[in-house]
């Protein structure tokens, strides 16, 4: 154990100051220090992806990142993804398509899906399955997770095209 260090992390849009041991994992900082227990821990070897969060906008496994490495950066956890009444399309997809059963891997899988759709807004089924390489779900058999991601992609794309239509000023002309 060594001396604690001061870090600042912007978590779900709110800046947090923490004093942490250099060895503290980001996922433990989120869960134990900040009480954000929506992010789960499923393994210790970066295989299962249950702990996936967005760090600096990218999906990372928070069990393999030290809290000090996140100093000065922004973190989005499932709590910051969307709330009831204002769900993120990925959350909606998981609810609509039965993309979860026990729900334990779900926050990490959803954050992975957000990362996946950022990189590839129109994934094929095969690309979604490949894109889920970093997560393990023991309940669903993945088929409905794939459907959930497809649903989210459709929603996000139609929202984008609506926005484009609105921006071009021709929304209600026809």
């Amino acid at each position, binding site marked *: 154990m060594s001396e604690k260090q001061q870090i600042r992390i912007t978590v779900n849009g709110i800046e947090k100051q923490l004093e942490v041991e250099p060895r503290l994992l980001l996922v433990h900082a989120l869960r134990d220090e900040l009480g954000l227990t929506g992010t789960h821990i499923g393994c210790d070897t970066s295989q299962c992806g249950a702990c996936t969060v967005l760090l600096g906008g990218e999906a990372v496994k928070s069990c393999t990142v030290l809290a000090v490495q996140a100093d000065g950066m922004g973190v989005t956890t499932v709590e910051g993804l*969307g709330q009831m009444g204002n769900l993120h399309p990925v959350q909606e997809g998981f609810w609509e398509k039965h993309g979860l059963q026990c729900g334990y891997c779900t926050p990490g899988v959803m954050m992975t899906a957000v990362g996946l759709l950022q990189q590839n807004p129109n994934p094929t089924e095969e690309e979604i399955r490949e894109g889920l390489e970093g997560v393990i779900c023991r309940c669903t058999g993945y088929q409905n997770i794939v459907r959930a991601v497809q649903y989210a992609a459709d929603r996000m794309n139609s929202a984008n095209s609506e926005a484009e239509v609105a921006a071009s000023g021709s929304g209600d002309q026809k």
Partner: protein
Amino acid sequence: MANVFGTTVKRREDPRLITGNGQYADDVQLQGMLYASILRSPHAHAKIVSIDTAKAKQSPGVVAVFTGQDLLGKVGLIPTAWLPPESDIKTTAHHALAVDKVRYVGDGVAMVVAESRYAARDAVDLIEVKYEVLPAVVDQEAAMQAQAPVLHDDAPGNVAFHWQAGNAADEVFEQAEVVVRQRFRQQRLIPNAMEPRSAVGQYNAGTGELTMWLTSQNPHIHRFLLSGILGMAEHKIRVLSVDVGGGFGSKIACYPDEVLVGYAAKTLGRPVKWTEDRRENFLITTHGRDMTLDVEFAGKKDGTFTAIRVKNVANMGAYLSTAAPGVPTILFGLIVPGAYKIPYAGVDVYGVFTNTTPTDAYRGAGRPEATYLLERMVDLFAREIGMDPVEARKKNLIQNHEFPYNTAMGLEYDSGNYELALGKALDMVGYDQLREEQAKLRSQGRLLGIGVTTYVEICGLGPSQVAGAVGFQGGLWESATVRVHPTGKVTVFTGASPHGQGEETTFAQIVAERLGVAVDDIEVVHGDTDRIAMGWGTYGSRTTPVGGNAIAIAVDKVIEKAKKIAAHMLEVAEEDVEFQDGSFQVKGAPSRKASIQEVTLQAYLAWNLPAGVEPALEGTAFYDPANFVYPFGTHICVVEIDKDTGETKILRYVAVDDCGRVINPMIAEGQVHGGIVQGIGQALWEGAVYDDQGQLVTGTFMDYAMPKARFFNNFETAFTETPAPRNPLGVKGIGETGTIASTPTVVNAVIDALSPYQIKDLDMPMTPERVWQAIHKGRDAQ
């Protein structure tokens, strides 16, 4: 409202789970909470010479260190709660922390309690233990040999139990026209629920109450067992399992660590949390399967099956886990004849101690192993007599008109329409065309394989009288309370303990349909021993057939009482009132009516109730089923094997399942998907491996192959609905069918694909390497 039963309703548990608001055990944060970490044996078999905890006790933040010696006389033994009759079972002592000897890698040796997770973990490394290492044995047949190391002095020869059942005598096989023999290895699997196990204990010295948050599939059983082990009155213990991240059988057992947390919380007077990491989960949370099976299957040349018998040597690990002895005996043995008319069947089961992690129930628990060997034998038999495997099945399936059907193992199958499901699956997959295509591809040197399984499952555990007769140390009925609040909203309390199966939704659908209230007005409460009278939990696909029917009966009691009040309100005789779509109406004058909500309000106001009727409105049922339920179906898989790599690609997977009346098709389909993937995992990739010293070689997700999304295409699923005749809702279980059916289906397909090489069987998992080796051996032989 009405007609909500049988329709897809989005899950009511999801809003909290998709927004990070679930409450899993490790999410519990309490003021002043301490953290526990457990030192685990690095040896599979060793005497403990000495334990020095001095350095650990001085480590920063450490509050206490406990060893096995410290707990003697204070913490009771970890019990075994399934004792198969006439099996000479040896329930050897299992201490929460090892006292004189460790018996598997992972056996608990000492526990540190400290101010933080990290401080506890640091101190564990400072405990010094001197061991005298003993020879270890990991294979169950090796453990039965005379010279094998003995784990428990009171179990000579390492035999934990020996159980036999059935009517298959030698003469049947001696006189048979055809006998096929085969040995199968049901490899050991690791359940790997995604949520590691966890326990949080909080003791209130003022009230003497201990609250435990546990990752449990059966909180009331946990409370019952903890009460005995900790020597505390049952009503002073509250167990909460609100959200549980999957179990698959591995969260049934009462584990040493849970007991230790309860003890530490009580002794130290501060809340204590312990959560296993994944490496610990691999080492200490119960494993599944691990049976060596020698099977004889007899029949006639015309394809008629006549007898099956099995010798099962089951690896129980170092101790007998809570429900473990029931798995290779009752849950395995009774279903060996499967969906076929086989007049003679028998099983001969040895449960054996080895220096490995204890085994216990794992999704399907005994039934996948039995179904596997049967469906493999049917294929081997069909091949032996030159019959199409589907024809062989059709010839022997129990027919629609033969239900209820009494089997050679003494079960009464409740209902079925096996050929309907088979026919539907054959149509969906296009079986005849597939066989033609296979022949064509074979002539081009390509290895297409088609595998079929026609299974039946025993589930909905079960009638309590039977539970007692087969040695289960508990009842298997279920409780339900349906409480209608003054405003007409409803809370349902169930003793079943779902952990991902969606019963907060399907149970609400049962009530909505029957009581005529909106699903959104119904809340289902589970996983809290203080709020729920009693319950036996969720396993053995019992939640819906037992817990669901308990709810239906409780609703009927609500209606029965409300009807009396409604008749009084409507000023007619009770016989003149009928209940429909949430409303009591006068027969022949349907405009004269009172809604369930109006009646409920009057029940609570109690200003003017009929004579003899008590105020308020709720119904409680304790439902003990009359029989098990027997879901069934047909699964068909098409694979292609790459000869150059040995890799199996699943081209198509068709599942037709019949679980009686389907409450929510979306959820039922989800259960099937998950089960299929878990079963295919066993067929193709998964397998726990120990070295000769008893070290678990496959101890992380890097070494143990978990199925991933990219391994699969979409499955094609369908249901037939043959209502269960012996319960009010007509439902059967669906949680385990996928796992039961998919393993033999895929293996049958793989072996079918390899038949040009004269390969009759391979051990699971059928990894590319194993298949490639077999192809090359086959080639060399040709």
